[in-house]
């Protein structure tokens, strides 16, 4: 498999006129190809900051971040970012929303269009291509947002609490959807969340961070049957064991 992402001694200091904030310190971990990694930590510990670093939006104060051995740059061919809100453009239909990113950097090729089209067909949005975002449910909108991200074929998906804006019932359904899509398309994903249950339901590995300045506290490999859906995992006995373990990690 090999590592797709590698962070080594990453440090980040935020500057503001009033003070400087030590957000991340000596943070190191690796993500292997095909893994689904969740990052949990106390609130305000810099989880989103970490994703911004991996996406190349922020530069680390010191340390090294590499994707497939290369230094990161803000380029969608490396990473695809998915936000808490779907951020669909209300004035564009679903097809134009999904292919939005293809317009930049001259990626609007037939091959890429076909890929986006296939994704929409495969994941239940076939009849909604000419609909507008306001005509779709919250769950469908988030699926469109995921396909928009996937259509750029990023090596690594960065998910920044993409389920937290959904109501509980929809959230469980969308988690199953997103998990299935990511597995199907054989993508590597990093999920940032404050929801321990969500992290256990979705991931193959959970990275627990300390409070600020954040560094890796523990890495827990989850051992579930490969064919379980996130919803089925929640009913598994191991789910509670992991939950308690991570809960106590975060507490102490």
């Amino acid at each position, binding site marked *: 498999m090999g590592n797709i992402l590698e962070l080594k001694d990453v440090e980040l200091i935020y500057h503001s006129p009033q003070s400087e904030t030590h957000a991340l310190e000596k943070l190191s971990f690796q993500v292997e190809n095909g893994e689904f990694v969740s990052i949990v930590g106390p609130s305000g510990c810099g989880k989103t900051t970490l994703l911004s670093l991996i996406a190349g939006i922020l530069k680390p104060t010191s340390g090294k971040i590499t994707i497939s051995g290369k230094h990161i740059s803000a380029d969608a061919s490396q990473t695809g*970012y998915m*936000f808490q809100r779907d951020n669909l453009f209300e*004035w564009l239909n679903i097809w134009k929303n999904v292919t939005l990113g293809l317009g*930049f950097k001259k990626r609007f090729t037939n091959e890429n269009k076909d890929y986006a089209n296939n994704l929409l067909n495969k994941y239940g949005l076939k009849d909604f291509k000419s609909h507008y975002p306001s005509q779709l449910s919250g769950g469908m909108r988030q699926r469109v947002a995921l396909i928009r991200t996937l259509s750029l074929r990023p090596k690594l998906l960065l998910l920044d609490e993409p389920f937290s804006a959904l109501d509980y019932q929809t959230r469980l359904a969308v988690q199953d959807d997103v998990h299935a899509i990511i597995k199907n398309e054989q993508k590597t994903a990093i999920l940032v969340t404050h929801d321990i249950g969500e992290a256990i339901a979705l991931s193959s590995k959970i990275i627990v961070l300390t409070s600020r300045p954040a560094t890796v506290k523990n890495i827990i490999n989850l051992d579930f049957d490969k064919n379980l859906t996130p919803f089925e995992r929640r009913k598994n006995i191991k789910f509670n064991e992991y939950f308690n373990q991570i809960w106590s990690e975060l507490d102490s």
Partner: protein
Amino acid sequence: MKNRNLNYSSAHKKYLRGLKLKTFSVHLVRILLLFVVLGLWELCATTQLIDPFISSSPSRIINQIKILAGNGALWHHSSVTLYETVLAFSISTLVGTIVAILLYAVPFIRKVLEPYLIVLNSLPKIALGPLIIVWMGTGTKAIVAMGILICIVITTISMLNGYLSVDKEKILLLKTMGASKLQILFKLILPATFSDFISILKINVGMSWVGTVMGEYLTSKAGLGYLIVYGGQVFKLDLVMAAIVVLCILAGLMYAIIASLELIVNSKRNK
């Protein structure tokens, strides 16, 4: 979709009927109000309850408009003012928007100019009247300049605020997709602020008429503002009233054009 009302319950049909009735009565009362006011005005004037020489009357206004239309003066004065207004409206909207985009794109200039914009915005532009006349002469140029002055600052400030309030996360999203600054402008900033643009167009319709009529008060040889000033000076209040009525109609038409433009674009967007 059209046959959907067949399936409605009787309660829903009743609700729809009630809704229709309400809209209808609003329209009815609206028109009635106009006729009642005009009728009362006419009545008071003919019975000499009020002096029609000072207050004019609907029939006298109509007569005056007929006279103006008959000798071609109506068209002449209206077209002069309309031309000035449309010119001031177009230039100030276009230039104001471009300046707003520049200020948005270059935060440094934006920060430098911020206090000046605020001062310019609160300055009563009419105070610049004498300067405009000295600098621009007493022709159309000065009147259009007055119209532009009145519209352009508010256009720039409103559009800039619109651009600045575009969702930061959407900008970030486009950045992670590798969009250039120009692509962010055309794919996100401009379409996202379309409704701001329409509302500034609507504001500018009103403001540009204010500007040109004010300009005509300052200096003019023709135009509806000229007619109003002239009518006031020679105490022909029928003429003043007639010019005001024509102004109302023209301004209303211009507003209607903008409103239908908004409808057309919105229906295209949501098809």
